[in-house]
């Protein structure tokens, strides 16, 4: 069993069979993180570089722990302390890193398509750690693993994705992934935050949150991407009034519906604190499963012939 490409650039590029392979592999890797000694020798001698052009706590930490638990060597480069501040271009940085013979480079960049550009130029594997508004495939995979471990299967589940759909790479990756695996997906948000023609990706659209939540098995909330709204955000209070997941709204969902959020959460804006910390919330499980998914990807991409 293998992935068809040397890179993981987006959910759009993955087949259902590949998604299944990644999730099954991640299921086995999850056990390693529950041990006293959280380390296996599988990727000894492999080098993994995390090249992050945007702020990140959980994704970068998660990739770093995944690499370390597989005994690979991992290096973090954050651009504020690198030669990027001296004016080096993305391509020059990528070529320089390639000359140091890494096996896998994880790239996060504010420009959509940056990891794809690099992947075409280098021999090593590239994993997209989030590019602009485009994709964040490892987040979608860890979301799918979390849902599958709770619900047993993805097929036929009703999933609502609510918030700033247009600016959310998490939403885009989940739409591609979840629809591919047989979920019925509804996206919801204020009209300016819904991308035009999003229906063509096979999802339903509504601007009414009650309608979006009613009879869902999974309610996935998104963070308002304040940093991507250059013009000032109209009104946080108004947004929260219509789109904050609170107790009354969650009660409309199916019993036992999962509440998800990719983090970091804005408490009281898109999700009420008692819901974020409540019985139905799997927000912290998402974080735990993120390490397993990233271990699986590093494992599946490492070695062999390029």
């Amino acid at each position, binding site marked *: 069993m293998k992935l068809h490409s040397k890179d993981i650039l987006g959910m759009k590029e993955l087949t259902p069979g590949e998604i299944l392979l990644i999730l099954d*592999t991640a299921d*086995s890797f999850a056990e390693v993180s529950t041990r006293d000694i959280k380390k*296996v020798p*599988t990727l000894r001698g492999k080098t993994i570089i995390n090249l992050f052009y945007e702020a990140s706590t959980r994704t970068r930490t998660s990739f770093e722990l995944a690499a370390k638990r597989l005994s690979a060597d991992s290096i973090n480069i954050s651009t504020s302390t690198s030669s990027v501040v001296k004016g080096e271009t993305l391509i020059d940085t990528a070529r320089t890193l390639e000359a140091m013979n890494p096996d896998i480079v994880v790239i996060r960049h504010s420009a959509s398509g940056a990891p794809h550009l690099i992947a075409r130029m280098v021999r090593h594997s590239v994993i997209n750690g989030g590019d602009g508004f485009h994709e964040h495939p490892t987040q979608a995979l860890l979301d799918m693993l979390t849902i599958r471990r709770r619900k047993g299967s993805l097929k036929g589940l009703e999933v609502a994705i609510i918030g700033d759909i247009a600016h959310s790479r998490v939403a885009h990756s989940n739409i591609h992934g979840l629809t591919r695996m047989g979920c019925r997906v509804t996206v919801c948000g204020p009209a300016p935050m819904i991308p035009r023609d999003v229906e063509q990706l096979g999802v339903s659209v509504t601007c009414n949150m009650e309608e979006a939540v009613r009879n869902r098995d999974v309610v996935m909330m998104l963070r308002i991407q304040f940093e991507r709204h250059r013009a000032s955000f109209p009104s946080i209070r108004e947004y929260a009034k219509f789109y904050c997941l609170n107790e009354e709204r969650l009660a409309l969902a199916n019993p036992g519906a999962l509440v998800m959020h990719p983090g970091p959460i804005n408490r009281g804006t898109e999700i009420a604190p008692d819901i974020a910390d409540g019985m139905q919330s799997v927000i912290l499980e998402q974080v735990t499963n993120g390490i397993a998914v990233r271990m699986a990807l590093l494992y599946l991409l490492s070695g062999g012939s390029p």
Partner: protein
Amino acid sequence: MNKVVMDGEEIERSITRIAYEILEKNRGADALIVIGIRTGGVFLASRLRDKISAIEKREIPFGILDVTFYRDDVTKMDNKPKPGRTDIPFSIDGKKVVLVDDVLFTGRTIRAAMDALIDFGRPKMIQLAVLVDRGHRELPIWPDYTGLDLPSSLWENVKVHLFERTGKDQVVIEEEG
């Protein structure tokens, strides 16, 4: 050409004999743990555990070990083996672990299994039980309990079929080609 070298009854008798040998060598079942190596060793280990538990009239702990993470060849492979779940829900510190596999061949799986076990704790000792020892070792590893010594040639394939997986109990030699 397939040749049956063990039938269901013979497999059953081997497991019974190995169960008594384990109890004899360890003077009972104190601190004994049975761990099956995925995938071939799991059902054998479970039968062996049931047999020992029945003789001793108490439950012997049973675990499952997947050695994929510890193999010495995975990073060289394009088609990665799909790792299975390891399930050892108890401490192995100070315990006598009986590792169980279906066929002992090069010994590399057992090397990986021992490395994996030691990451779980410090067992008092590790013993090895196999249904078939087909020879051709590449590492200095020897079984403590063997169902059948089967000198084989390298172009033959020794397959253990168990009821739990394939619906029948049988050990066969398959010739390639």
